[in-house]
């Protein structure tokens, strides 16, 4: 009995704690509610009145998205484009990342600025040039062209991650392999690649999600044959079918949430900034 009043008193008087909890709760709602309402809206068959929940539930909007929105085709485009962006980004960034990470490079400062520059300008400010160039080369409305447009954004990131990965390799392990008589190419395949694999994989995963989510550059280079999920969402909103847009959004969310789960085990706030970009 003697403990009860004490706890009670603390709960009442610890204003700081109450304030802190309220603040965090409000923050939680502010962040999560906009995403939760997408999920509800996508399964709300009829939801027109000012009510907190739909009047009728059903998967009708997904069926709509499938038939009218032609989602299987669009999803296929999105995945193929993202996969092509991964292959191209890695093909270009692996050798250059190696050079930046492990070799003596002249004008290093200038090259670093060059890598960072695309991230310092608003994408829309050079997207016009990309569109102009791709129209001239006939790359607009091809899967390859849209993927290449995405590489504009993903290549600098892949370079940053891979050069850091290669620079961070433990020299002693490579040295040990050499000392034990391993030939260079064997060392590369059996020592260097496995050591660098986490970095290469994280670059690949990031490039994939960025391309899958990319909107600005797709909007200026897509055509009837290369509609991707984000563009489809935009077109559907423009047509006024917001619940259908919610259904497509749910499909768009899947890879991002998977990545969030992947990284949740290792959270270092300052390190995350380098790569992730929301727009």
């Amino acid at each position, binding site marked *: 009995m003697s403990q009860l009043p004490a706890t009670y008193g603390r709960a009442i008087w610890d204003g700081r704690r109450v304030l802190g909890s309220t603040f965090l709760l409000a923050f939680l709602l502010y962040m999560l509610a906009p995403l939760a309402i997408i999920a509800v809206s996508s399964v709300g068959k009829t939801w027109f009145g000012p009510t907190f929940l739909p009047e009728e539930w059903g998967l009708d909007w997904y069926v709509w998205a499938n038939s009218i929105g032609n989602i299987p085709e669009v999803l296929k485009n999105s995945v193929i484009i993202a996969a092509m962006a991964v292959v191209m980004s890695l093909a270009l960034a692996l050798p250059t990342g190696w050079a*930046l990470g492990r*070799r003596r490079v002249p004008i290093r400062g200038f090259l670093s600025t060059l890598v960072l520059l695309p991230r310092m300008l608003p994408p829309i400010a050079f997207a016009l040039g990309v569109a102009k*160039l791709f129209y001239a080369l006939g790359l607009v409305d091809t899967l390859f062209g849209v993927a290449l*447009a995405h590489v504009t954004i993903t290549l600098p990131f892949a370079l940053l991650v891979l050069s850091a990965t290669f620079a961070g390799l433990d020299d002693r392990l490579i040295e040990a392999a*050499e000392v034990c008589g391993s030939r260079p190419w064997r060392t590369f395949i059996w020592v260097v690649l496995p050591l660098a694999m986490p970095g290469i994989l994280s670059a690949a995963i990031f490039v994939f999600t960025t391309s899958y989510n990319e909107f600005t550059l797709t909007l200026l280079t897509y055509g009837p044959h290369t509609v991707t999920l984000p563009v489809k969402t935009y077109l559907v909103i423009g047509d006024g079918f917001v619940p259908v847009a919610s259904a497509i959004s749910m499909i768009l*969310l899947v890879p991002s949430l998977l990545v969030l789960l992947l990284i949740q085990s290792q959270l270092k706030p300052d390190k995350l900034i380098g790569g992730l970009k*929301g727009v």
Partner: protein
Amino acid sequence: MSFAEQPGAAALGGAGLRIPGLFRERRNGLVTLALLTPGFGGIAFLFLLPLWLVFQLSFAPEGADSGFTLDNYASFLGDGKLVDAFFLSIELAVLATLFSILLSVPLALALRRPFRSNRAFRLLILLPLMVPALVSAVGLRLFWGDVGWANLTIQLLPFVDGPIRIVFTIPGLVLFYVWLFFPFTALLTLAALEGIDPAIEEAAEVSGASRWRVLIHVLLPLAVPGILAGSVLTFIESFGAFSVPLVTGGDYRPLSVQIYTVSAIFLHWNEGAAMSVVMGVTQIVFLVTYFRLLRRRGWSER
């Protein structure tokens, strides 16, 4: 290296190594050049060339690819709507940055202490960085809309009748921008606060400073470099934001949306290019002055 340990620019800086065999740092410039070619060739072709094309287009007469005229800049600056768009972009970026700081500082202070769901809240900060911006736009529009949950809740209050317009207003856009771009400020503020040596805080407490005084005179001043570094990222992301204002802006069209409308819808590519140049130059000028200022104040970390 794990996915979460993606390094920033600093990683490009130094790599001195001395190892034997294939992996020795050789001075064979040709090999280095061959290795550098794919990556920087890609950047030159996909970024520098388009940038040059935009620049060239902006000075070319209407409908042409090259030439020299200032007409595009003149018609941009002569069009009140487009000039307003420029100032709207700046206004939104400034407001979003200020409110991001106001949200991030208390949040980082709260997350600095361990509690049960601390980790979940840290994940929550990452959410806007992972969710496609267009999906966020759909959700924010639904949630803050006239019949969205936010409005329905507001209407439960007495004295409020009828929905309050939030979507398609400037306060609404600021609300959305903060949701989307505050993580940059929050993550770097959190990192800065966690980097403070606990001994400094203890010393202040032992010396008799109240919690409030410790916060104002010790913690915040030490966190300023982090807050500023994060807020500059929030600022440039807000300034360049495109998909969210496109979907949720309504009649409020910042410069990014106007560039798209003028070039891709009205097909005035040259004028759109002139607007792109103004936008890019504004951002670069902002970044350069900002970092100059930081360095002079000794707040720069780099």
